[in-house]
Every structure is written in structure tokens, then in C-alpha cells.
């Protein structure tokens, strides 16, 4: 029984890690290439979830929802980038943070206006509503699907960046944008492309998270903070860092919430453990981040320029 619980929590952690990876990959690329601090990334995740919920409600097909939500978020990201954010690339980080803070407020209110303040429900698709027995342990098929999609996207992203021409341009832009521009690379187009890619990944994460978490206004912010923890821990701008650190943060956060109160009960009085347990569990990943930064200020996998 204990082993079962342990295994289930490990898979839950893995699944949270995959979601965090999808979000942090896009955000870290945007930061690495444009040197742009996009705090409204969580809003794109939220919009992806809402698009999916709306289309699923209308069409009844999760596949159609996915086919609309992901390109829809991509398009939204490109529009926002062209209209507002592209003007901020040359400005300092303070302006970028403020502008994207403003955008978060706008997106939350737009969602509240269209879909109302109450959570919207997005059901698990029929085909994935069952459980899969893994070593005689039932685990929801949908959560397995998330892990699978995450792995596929991760491999795809790796191939895209390391084995294609676009990926080469992205790497060139990241290591020296000015030089790449001088060699004739259309940097503004590349920026829009990368931003769109990040938005699409955020939309995908929102779509997949929809059936697990509640689809509600402001759902992007709590996960954005986790994503920031992932990026800072992994090393800003590093995709490899985002992979490892997303998985670490996902597993540590899930395991902390599941096991820490129980572990503390072994050492502390029951009433104290009950009060302290959840508090420490919710702080665990921040403490992890603090420890990592204390020893490696550049993160676990810093990007090497030059």
C-alpha cells in the first residue's frame, strides 16, 4: 500500500513536472533569445485552457478542442507580441515586467467578462477516462497521456532546436542576436516565431491541465510562479535546465505535499505537525530554489555564451 502510494505520487509529480516543462520551455526561450521578461506567460496558459473548454463544450470532441486551442493560443501570442510586447524588447526589465503585469490584469478581466468568474469545467476525453494498470496499480489514463505528450514535445523541441535550420537560427539569435542580424537573419520575424512557439506550448499546457485543475480566471498566476522557480533553478535561457528542473520541482512539490506532513508527525507532536506540515510543504520548492541559488547563482545548467 505504501509503495503504491509512493508510486502514484511519483507519477503525479512527473505529470506536474511535464506541465511545468511545457510552460518553462517557452518562457525560457523567450527570455534567452529576446532578453524579455514575459510575466504574462501564465495568461497564455489560461487562455489555452479557456479556448479548449469553450470548443470542447461546443463540439464535444477533445481532439477538435486541441486543434483549436493550441493554434488559437499561438495566434493570440503572436498578436500580443506584435501589438505591444515587441516595442519593449529594447527597454529595461522594469518596463517589461510592468507591461506584462498590465497584460495579466487585462487577460483576467477579459476571461471574467466572457466566461464569468466561476470555474469552467473541462472534462477528460472519453477515450482517456479510464485507468491503466501499471504493475497492478491503477493510474488514470489521462495523466499518463499528459506524461506521454510532454515527452514527445520534449524530444520534438530538442530535434527542432538541434537538427533544423530554424533551430539553428534560434540558437544563433540566442547566443548573439546582433551578429545574427548582421548576417542577414530576420531577427524580428525570429522573435515573433519564438514567441508564438512559446505561446503554443503554453496553450498546450493549458489544454492538458484543464481537466485536472479548475479552469478559472487567475489560474495562470499560481503556475507562473512555479514556472519562474523552475527557470531560475534550471538556469535562465537553458532548455536542458528547464527539463531537469521542471521534473525536480514537480516531484519535490508533489512529494512534499503528500509525505511531509506524515514525516513530520513522526518527529513532532501531532498538533504542531498538523500546523507546520502544510506550511513547510508549500515552502519546500522555494527553499530548494534558495539552496540551489546559494551554491549556483546561475542555476543548475547555466547557458554558456561565446
Amino acid at each position, binding site marked *: 500500500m505504501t509503495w503504491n502510494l509512493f508510486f502514484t505520487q511519483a507519477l503525479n509529480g512527473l505529470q506536474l513536472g511535464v506541465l511545468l516543462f511545457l510552460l518553462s520551455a517557452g518562457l525560457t526561450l523567450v527570455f534567452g533569445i529576446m532578453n524579455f521578461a514575459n510575466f504574462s506567460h501564465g495568461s497564455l496558459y489560461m487562455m489555452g485552457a479557456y479556448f479548449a473548454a469553450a470548443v470542447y463544450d461546443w463540439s464535444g470532441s477533445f481532439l477538435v478542442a486541441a486543434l483549436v486551442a493550441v493554434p488559437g493560443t499561438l495566434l493570440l501570442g503572436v498578436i500580443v507580441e506584435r501589438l505591444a510586447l515587441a516595442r519593449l524588447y529594447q527597454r529595461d526589465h*522594469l518596463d517589461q515586467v510592468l507591461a506584462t*503585469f498590465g497584460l495579466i490584469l487585462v487577460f483576467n*478581466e477579459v476571461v471574467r*467578462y466572457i466566461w464569468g468568474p466561476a470555474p469552467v469545467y473541462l472534462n477528460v476525453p472519453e477515450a482517456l477516462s479510464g485507468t491503466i494498470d501499471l504493475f497492478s496499480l491503477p493510474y488514470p489514463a489521462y495523466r499518463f497521456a499528459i506524461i506521454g505528450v510532454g515527452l514527445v514535445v520534449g524530444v520534438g523541441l530538442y530535434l527542432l532546436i538541434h537538427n533544423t535550420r530554424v533551430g539553428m537560427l534560434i540558437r544563433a539569435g540566442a547566443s548573439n542576436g546582433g551578429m545574427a542580424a548582421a548576417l542577414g537573419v530576420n531577427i524580428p520575424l525570429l522573435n515573433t516565431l519564438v514567441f508564438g512557439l512559446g505561446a503554443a506550448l503554453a496553450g498546450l499546457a493549458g489544454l492538458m491541465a484543464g481537466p485536472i485543475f479548475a479552469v478559472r480566471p487567475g489560474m495562470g*498566476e499560481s503556475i507562473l*510562479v512555479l514556472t*519562474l522557480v523552475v527557470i531560475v533553478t534550471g538556469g535562465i535561457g537553458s532548455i536542458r535546465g528547464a527539463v531537469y528542473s521542471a521534473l525536480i520541482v514537480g516531484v519535490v512539490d508533489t512529494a512534499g505535499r503528500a509525505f511531509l506532513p506524515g514525516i513530520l508527525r513522526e518527529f513532532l507532536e501531532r498538533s504542531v505537525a498538523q500546523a507546520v506540515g502544510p506550511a513547510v510543504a*508549500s515552502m519546500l520548492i*522555494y527553499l530548494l530554489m534558495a539552496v540551489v541559488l546559494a551554491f549556483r*547563482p546561475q542555476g543548475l545548467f547555466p547557458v554558456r555564451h561565446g
Partner: protein
Amino acid sequence: MAEQVHPLRFGFAGAFLLLLALVPVVAPAIGQPHYVTMFSRIMIFGLAAVGLNFILGFGGLVSFGHALYIGIGAYAVGIMAFHGVTSAWAQLAAALAVGAAAAVLIGLVCLRTSGVAFIMITLAFTQMGYFLAVSLTQYGGDDGMPIPARSDLGVGSLDHGAILYYLIFALLVLVLYAANRVVHSRFGMVLRGCKSNERRMIALGFPTLRYKLSAYVISALICVIAGMLLANLTRYVSPAYMGWVASGDLIVMVVFGGVATLFGPVVGSAALVIVEEALSSFSLGLPWGIDALVSTHWLGLLGILILIVVLKLKQGLYGALAAREQRST
């Protein structure tokens, strides 16, 4: 260094402070006593924004996490009052001690990074404080808790709105005066040097981390005091005081008013609180339900306003005065 007197800014700040000083006298006379509360809020957030501007404007460190310290101040008052300790001095000592300890530890970690990483980590630590407050179920958890009694100063009761108002006013003036002295002191010069070229400051032999950490702790403690005042004003503490929106609001105030100006944050705080009040109770009798639309979704309009300010008005309201003075000389 002898400080130059800027007539336009000096006059504006003086007039503004005079206006603030008159509010508790004028507001009841014109039958709008709630203005006392509103202007108390303006000054409290102005105080916090002055604190934030100390490192953001003069040190170049964009902290997205100063609401954490407002929360620490507020919870110190709330928790101690909950356990029957209402002495303002005991609360002040506890709040400053906890605030300083948190600021030193968090500052040491955050200052190992710079730029965007600094912004992200300060936000992350604030969220940590937020979740910690949410998990304190015995102190209200998610919902927050009412505070049984205001802080007891020994002289005069803070239950009297005007006394609390003038206490806040006095603290604001004191902090503004102190900030002015510090910014123009040697310490302030080193801090501003770190902002414009830290590598050179290190080459000159300054232990910049020590300077930046001191500045971070000072600015955090100003926010702790603002938090204590806020708890006394509202008689309520809630995790929302240290939510990410609260941190963002503080930055908005600094930028609205003018980064790296002494009085700017107070102007920015006034602008933001008044815009909030105006939008959230919007009723001009416009057709097609626009009134209700604005008052329910005013945060969205605020977001658009922030976008416009960032894209167009780069120096802020009070900063524009400074630019004007520079043009005319």
C-alpha cells in the same frame, strides 16, 4: 554634497504634503469623512512605495516582492493582537526583528543574482510568504482574520481616525526626510554607483553586496512599518496583502510617480488609489450598462492604463516635473 534646490519639484511636494495635512480637517467639513480613510491608504502605500523606490529607483534592483514585508508587518500586528499583546512598541520590535531577519536571508539569496532572475526570485519568495500565510489556519488561513484591537501607543487611541492619520502622516514625512538624507549621503552615492556601473564600483574597492543588502533591508523595513499601519487602518489581515498583485501595485506606484525621484512614489500611490476608487465605484450614468461594466471589470482597465503608461509616459507623473526643470535650466 550640498543638495540643489529644485523649485518646481520642491513646491509641488510641499503643496502636496500640505494638502495631505489638511485632509482630516477638510473631509468632515465637506461631508466626506471617508476621504480620511482613503488618504490614509494613499499615505500607507506611498510609504511602502518610497521604501521600494529606495532599492528599485536608486539601487536599480527591481523587487517584485515587497508586498511580503507589508504582509509581515500586518501579520505581526494581527498575530500579536490575537494573543493579547497590543502594545505598539512590542509589536514594532517584533515586526522589525522578523522583517529584518527575513530581509537579510532573502536578500542574501536574491542578491546573488541580478536582472530578470532577481525579479523572478523576489516574486517567488513573496508567493512563498503568501502560501505560508494561507496555511496558517489558526490565523484565518485563506480568508484572513479581523484584528481584535488596534495597536496601543500609550498616548492617544488609534481608534480615532484622525490620530491614526496624523501618525501615518508624521511617519511618511519622517521617512521622506530620512530617504532624502540617505540618498545624498555617501551610502546613497555608492548605491547609485552600483546601479549605473557595479563592476566599476567593485574595481574601486567597494564591497557592493554589503551596500546593496543594507539598502534592501532598509527598504524592506519601511514596508514592514507600512504593513503595521495598514493592519491598524483596516483592522484586518489577509494573505492578499502579500499577493503578487500587491507587489505589482507597488511597482506601478513607483513607475506612475517617477522612478528614482524622492516624492514620486507618493504621487504614484495617490494616482493609483484614486484611479482604483474612481473605477471600482464608477457611476456616471452612462448608457448600455457601461457603468456596471467598468465597476466590475475595472482591473482590466487598470491593466490597459498601465500598458499605456509604460509604452508612452516613461518618466512618470512627478518625474515629468524633474525633466521639465532640466529642460528649462
